[in-house]
C-alpha cells in the first residue's frame, strides 16, 4: 500500500473514532448530578457553577401514602421540563416518576410515596431539570414512615 494511502486510512480511522467517542459520551457530558440536599426540614438549596436550585417539600415529616407537594426554583436558563424520579435509598421501590408543572415562580408537582411499607425508610428524589441540550439532576434526600 502506498504511504499516502496508509496515512489517509489512519487519519480517517482517527476521525471516525473521535466522532464515535463524542457521540457515545454525549449523554455523559450533558448530564450533571448534584447530591446531598437534605430536605427533611422541608426545604433545601444547592449552588453549582453560579446556578441556584431551591426546593420545598411538604407536608413534613413525610409519610407513605400521603399527598406531598414539591416545588423547585432555579435560575438555570432554558429549562423546559422538570420531573422527578423517586427511589428508595437502600432498596428498589418500583418506578415512581412524576412531572412538575411550571407556575409563575416555580415548578410544582404533587405525588404520593405510593408504597405501603413497614417502618421508616430513606427516599431519594432525583429532580431532573431539562433544557434542549442538558440535564441537571439534584438529589434530594428525606425520611418517611
Amino acid at each position, binding site marked *: 500500500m502506498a504511504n499516502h494511502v496508509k496515512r489517509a486510512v489512519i487519519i480517517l480511522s482517527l476521525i471516525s473514532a473521535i466522532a464515535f467517542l463524542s457521540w457515545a459520551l454525549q449523554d455523559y457530558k450533558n*448530564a450533571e448530578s448534584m447530591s446531598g440536599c437534605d430536605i427533611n426540614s422541608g426545604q433545601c438549596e444547592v449552588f453549582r457553577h453560579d446556578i441556584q436550585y431551591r426546593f420545598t417539600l411538604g407536608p413534613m415529616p413525610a409519610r407513605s401514602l400521603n399527598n406531598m407537594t414539591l416545588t423547585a426554583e432555579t435560575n438555570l436558563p432554558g429549562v423546559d421540563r422538570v420531573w422527578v424520579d423517586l427511589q428508595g435509598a437502600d432498596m428498589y421501590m418500583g418506578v415512581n416518576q412524576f412531572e412538575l408543572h411550571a407556575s409563575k415562580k416555580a415548578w410544582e408537582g404533587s405525588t404520593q410515596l405510593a408504597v405501603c411499607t413497614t417502618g421508616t425508610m430513606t427516599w431519594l428524589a432525583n429532580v431532573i431539570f431539562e433544557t434542549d441540550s442538558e440535564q441537571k439532576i439534584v438529589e434530594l434526600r428525606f425520611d418517611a414512615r
Partner: protein
Amino acid sequence: MITRTKTLLAIGMLILVMLVVGTILFKPNNSFQPVQLGGEFHGNSIDGAVSLSDFKGKLVLLYFGYTSCPDICPTSLTSMKFAFNELKSDQLAQIQPIFYSVDPDRDSLEQLQVYSHFFSPLILGMTGSRHQIDSAIQQYGAYYRMVEQPDSAMGYTVDHSSKIYLIDQQGEFLGTVSHNNPNQLVEKIRSILQ
C-alpha cells in the same frame, strides 16, 4: 523500517478498536430517562386463565395487593367502589377493575373472588404464579416485598405499591391514580371514556 511501520499501525488500530469497544461496553451514563411502563400480563381467576388482552375494548383499572392487607387494600378497593357509584351503567360496562394478589400462597382463587366482590361485583380477583406476578409487577413499575412478622399470627405482611394503574381499551398504559381519591378516579374514568 516497513515492519516497524506495520507494527505501529497495528498497535494504533488495536488501541482504536479497544477504545470503541470499551466505550460501547462501559459507556458512562448518569442521565435519567422516563421509564416506559405497561404490557400484557397473565394469571388466573376462579373462572380460569386471565390475560390483559381478554379485556381489549375496556378500560382496565389494575391494583396489586393481597387479601390479608390490613388497611391499604380495603381503602383502595373502597375508593374504587365509591368511584363506581358515581358512574352510569353504560360507563360501568366499559371498565374492568382487577385486584391482582401478590400473595398466592394465602390467597386462593375462591377467596379472591369473595374478597373482591365484597367491594364490587365488577372487580375481578386474580393472582398468578410467582413468575407471572413478578413479570406483571416489573412491567408496571410496581413493587412488593414479604416482611416477616414473627410475633404475629399472620407470619408475614407484604409491603407493596398502592396505586391504581389505568390501561386503555387498546391495552396501553395511561398512568396511575392515587389509591385513596375516588373523585380523581371518577374524573379520570370519565375523561378516558368520553
